[in-house]
């Protein structure tokens, strides 16, 4: 009913869910310096999500702010891509997931920073800087793990093989995208984005001495609320305190 709202929800939820997943690592990272790095990235992503969800709430015009959207929607109302909700797994899964998303996000935000919707362009431009650091960090780790030890290589390859099926969804485009292109002048060329992304990914995968998976059937559904069973459990933890005190301030 409100395509721009849906669109912003998708972007905000991507970063909220991914940021939350990363924050699960705090205090449990493999290296202290990496604990700090992951926390930094989580912080950035949740910040981006905050801005995007706030914008979404304004566009929706029903009085829902970022917290209301983050803490009081059920799983079926979330619009994140499936890639970001998959559990952290080991450090390889986390880093490969991060890299696949960062490469997409940098390209997307770069395009959006030039779109004609001022509010979104501003958020995109501001977030882009940080995303570029994220991308550098995650691609370096994919290379380190792929071209590290035999064990890290195997874990990285396994991660890539299991996550690849979620990457198609990032570049899907549907009626919502068509509508925002028409109504809000947010026109992303998804095929071009996908192509650029694939080039970036192939390069890092190659430097990491990993093998690009052959396209299995892609898993999709997140953009329409058809999530995996993981999201509900993640949200139970995320929302329990807020939901236990409806109407309270923190």
């Amino acid at each position: 009913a409100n395509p721009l709202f849906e669109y912003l929800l998708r972007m905000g939820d991507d970063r909220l869910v991914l940021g939350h997943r990363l924050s699960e690592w705090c205090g449990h990272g493999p290296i202290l310096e990496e604990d700090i790095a992951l926390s930094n990235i989580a912080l950035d992503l949740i910040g981006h999500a905050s801005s995007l969800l706030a914008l979404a709430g304004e566009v929706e015009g029903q009085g829902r702010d970022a917290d209301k959207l983050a803490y009081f929607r059920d799983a079926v109302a979330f619009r994140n891509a499936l890639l970001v909700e998959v559990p952290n797994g080991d450090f390889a899964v986390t880093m490969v997931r991060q890299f696949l998303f960062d490469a997409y996000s940098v390209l997307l935000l770069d395009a959006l920073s030039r779109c004609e919707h001022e509010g979104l362009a501003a958020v995109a431009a501001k977030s882009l800087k940080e995303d570029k650091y994220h991308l550098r960090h995650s691609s370096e780790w994919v290379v380190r793990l792929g071209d590290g030890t035999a064990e890290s290589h195997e874990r990285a390859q396994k991660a890539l093989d299991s996550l690849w099926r979620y990457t198609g969804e990032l570049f899907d485009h549907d009626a919502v995208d068509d509508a925002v292109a028409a109504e809000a002048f947010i026109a992303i060329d998804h095929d071009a984005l996908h192509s650029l992304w694939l080039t970036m990914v192939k390069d890092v995968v190659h430097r990491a001495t990993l093998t690009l998976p052959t396209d299995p059937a892609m898993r999709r559904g997140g953009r329409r609320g058809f999530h995996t069973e993981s999201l509900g459990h993640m949200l139970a933890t995320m929302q329990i305190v807020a939901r236990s005190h409806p109407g309270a301030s923190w």
Partner: protein
Amino acid sequence: MDQNPPVPTEDPALLAAFEARIAAGESIEPKDWMPERYRKQLTRMMSQHAHSEIVGMLPEGNWITRAPSLRRKMSLIAKVQDEAGHGLYIYCGTETLGVDRHELVEALLDGRAKYSSIFNYPTLSWADMGVIGWLVDGAAIVNQTVLAKASYGPYARAMVRICKEENFHKRQGYEICSVLANGTPEQKAMVQEAFNRFWWPSLMMFGPSDTDSPNSAELLKWRVKRKTNDELRQRFVNLTVPQAIAIGITVPDPDMAFDADTGNWEFGEIDWSEFFEVLKGNGPCNRERLDARRKAHADGEWVRAAATAHAEKQKARSSTAAA
């Protein structure tokens, strides 16, 4: 690390010169001569402090995924991240004393190293996040403000940096408590209950009365320690009780009373048996804290190995390229 090794024979002239510098308020730097016992005491204090920062990430990290607003979620992640940074910074400081960081980490994981007792208490509600910032960072600041004038340069400077961030954390913690105390009846009850759990343990953070503390005399002489445990504890109580009153929180101490003559908030007897149990490893969370650090370390082994292997490959490639 021995608490009370036999005093090694130090050159009396060097020792005298050293103690004169201390008395004059000078800063001892890494390249200066120092008695072996001084080096050992500093190493012990600094490593305990670093371990405390690292272990201290866990009780608060426990609530990151449940933080009830995006702003609080971000603040908490940032706080825990700061603690990791403090730990790193102090580990680097211990390296100036000639101690290997990996040895220190091993001592921690083996259960041989100490860290602040307060982190052996579990965090059981969101309100603990406010109370910890307010009371635990608050107590740490009282300790550290004084340490900022400690005789060992690297430690003193680390304290200045860390205190700045911890003052911010303390204010944020107090703010969380203030919002809860002015919130719904459930929120009020939540913060009072959390305060009740952390009050006495935070008083214990200053350590037992100095008469019971083996290291105090020596540390005071060397201006590593500048005030007694009891003095610091009293300062903390005097700061904190009015803060509690201001937001309607009751201190769970029936013997608490303001002494107009001294200006002190007099408080009741501390049950030190709990403290000593926790020190012995029998606190509520001692095992869980160590298990968590051990698991992170063990699970991360292959990652560290990969980073090392990759770095070596890179080095080999650039040598080959250069050749």
